[in-house]
């Protein structure tokens, strides 16, 4: 018994001294497979991220997750930064009281998300049919926006959603010809469209700039008194824009980078390029900065927060969308001033745009 206690306390001591040994602050960045986020993995593998991390005196670990678990890990504060959409940033960490800051607006979906049908149904004919999608995600947002734009929002009540896991949605729709409507994202969309008699009737290019892909960092990490959080954010921004510059180079030089990115996410260059074609990636910092500072972002977030609130994604006890407030780069706030939970910070993109990183 005594031996056991000695061994255990020895172990505890060892673990304690190990964690104290590293002087460079270490941060973890989580990402999941998606065209706009695949570059993060390449960034880590190619040594680009390490170069920038060394410059700012931090260490950055990059970890791949499935999308939902990456959000869980971020909310549980197991990781410091995470790639997610504007909608999830609002309804997962922000709504759960984890103050979150978006440091990079990476891209928006410009056709990546789509509504696909059999038998050439039109949007007006969809009510009454069953719709396969991952409920309460951007898929449902896209579908309901499409219905609203086409003045069909009163019909939404008649739509029957079948909550379908994204890992099986392509197989489920292709395998079961009695299903008529599916809403999902690329590369699943491309896969499903290869099936016979399936057409696309709506996609995110009709609501440009509304489904944004962000890199977010916990605000308390950014505000660490030793400034390491800010150095971490600067390192990410620096590496990101160096990589996007490489990606946008024309000809074989850019292709080489793109195919390496595709490779680390087990995709092919051809398929990756096809996905990029329907993604509006902000290759340069000034373009991302302009988007982040635009009024359009405010309009988008207004739509998104109303959607989240009406679908109770902000929590059962949240009585108003104002309880999860959003702060924009110009200082304006949507919602209650004392309840800011999501912040769009343009300063890191501005530093990159000014070449000051």
């Amino acid at each position, binding site marked *: 018994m005594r031996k056991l206690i000695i061994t255990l306390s020895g172990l505890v001591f060892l673990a304690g001294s190990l964690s104290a040994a590293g002087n460079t602050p270490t941060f973890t960045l989580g990402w999941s497979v998606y065209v706009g986020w695949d570059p993060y993995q390449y960034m880590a593998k190619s040594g680009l991220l390490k170069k920038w991390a060394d410059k700012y005196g931090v260490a950055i670990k990059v970890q791949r997750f499935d999308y939902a678990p990456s959000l869980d890990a971020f909310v549980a504060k197991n990781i410091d930064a995470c790639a997610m959409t504007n909608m999830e940033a609002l309804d997962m960490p922000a709504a759960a009281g984890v103050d979150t800051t978006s440091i990079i607006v990476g891209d928006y979906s410009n056709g990546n998300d789509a509504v696909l049908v059999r038998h050439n149904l039109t949007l007006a004919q969809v009510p009454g049919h*069953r719709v396969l999608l991952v409920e309460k995600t951007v898929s449902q947002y896209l579908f309901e926006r499409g219905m609203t734009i086409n003045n069909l929002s009163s019909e939404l009540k008649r739509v029957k959603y079948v909550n379908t*896991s994204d890992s099986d949605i392509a*197989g*489920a729709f292709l395998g079961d010809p009695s299903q008529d409507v599916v809403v999902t994202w690329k590369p699943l969309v491309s896969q499903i469209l290869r099936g016979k008699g399936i057409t696309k009737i709506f996609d995110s290019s009709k609501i440009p700039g509304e489904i944004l892909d962000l890199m977010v960092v916990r605000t308390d990490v950014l505000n660490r008194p030793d400034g390491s959080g800010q150095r971490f954010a600067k390192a990410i921004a620096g590496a990101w824009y160096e990589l996007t510059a490489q990606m946008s180079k024309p000809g074989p030089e850019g292709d080489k980078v793109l195919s390496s990115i595709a490779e680390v996410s087990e995709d092919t260059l051809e398929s990756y390029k096809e996905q990029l074609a329907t993604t509006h990636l902000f290759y340069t910092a000034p373009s991302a900065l302009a988007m982040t500072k635009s009024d359009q972002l405010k309009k988008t977030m207004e739509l998104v927060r109303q959607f989240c609130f009406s679908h109770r994604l902000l929590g059962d006890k949240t009585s108003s969308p104002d309880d999860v407030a959003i702060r924009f780069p110009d200082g304006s706030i949507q919602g209650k001033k004392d309840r800011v939970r999501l912040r769009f910070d343009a300063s890191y993109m501005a530093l990159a745009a000014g070449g000051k990183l």
Partner: protein
Amino acid sequence: MSPLQIHAQPSRATVWTLSWLLFAAGLTSYFWVSRGRHIENPDDRVMPTIRQMGQGFADALLKPADDDEVAPDADKQSLFAKIRGGMLWKDTMATGRRFLISMALLFPAVILGLHMGMFPYVGLFFLRFVLFFDKIVALSLLPILFIAFGIDEMAKIMLILIGVGPTIILDSFNLTRGVPKEQIVKGFTLGAGDFAVTYRIVLKQIWPRVLNSIRLNLKAVMIFLFSGEMIASQDGLAYRIALLRRHMGMDTIIPYVLWVALLLFLIDYGMRVFNRKLHPWFQEA
């Protein structure tokens, strides 16, 4: 006498205390960590407090799901009507129906196993295939299952049957084989026919053990059912959990998980009692 010896005889009070100690430790550490998280972040949703969970459970019990139509006279309804219209009741009914159908469909599996054990030709025909099939991880063949069974109720029930059926068949087969040959010979010498021997001598004897094996497979049934509901569905307990996960509704998920555990415990207990009542001569379980 040292309490750590085999011959130790704990008193009643010790038995009671010791058996609940881990529960108490688990609950205490949960609420301790939960409290810490709530002090740091009042909006924390990962580890809800007992009040939040109570509220979540009450809402699930009394209020309809948000995508359901609310009855116009909802306020005036009796408590019973409210529960019947509530989210928890509807989800439990949907999952319960699938569960009962698949349990009912597991009984033919027992009969098949019995026949495989008794009749050489039936055994030859099925045994190798079932042995092979038993080792297939059904969940990884989902796309094929979708083609064969669609994504509706049928697919969910088939997933359970494919997952658990072979185990039950093989178990009944082995139990059948375990019945002493002498009894079968004796049955024949007393003038019984093939079917009388099969059903009235062998089946009768293996029945309590088969029930036991079905009981031990309850959890597997539930795991397959939950996977099915999480893959594609419009109702059910696992459907609700999958949806609530999307916005970290742990205040409802935890009561749901406990509710499922309670139901499983009750079914398990019920089957044990039923088995003992039905086969008082059987002492093993």
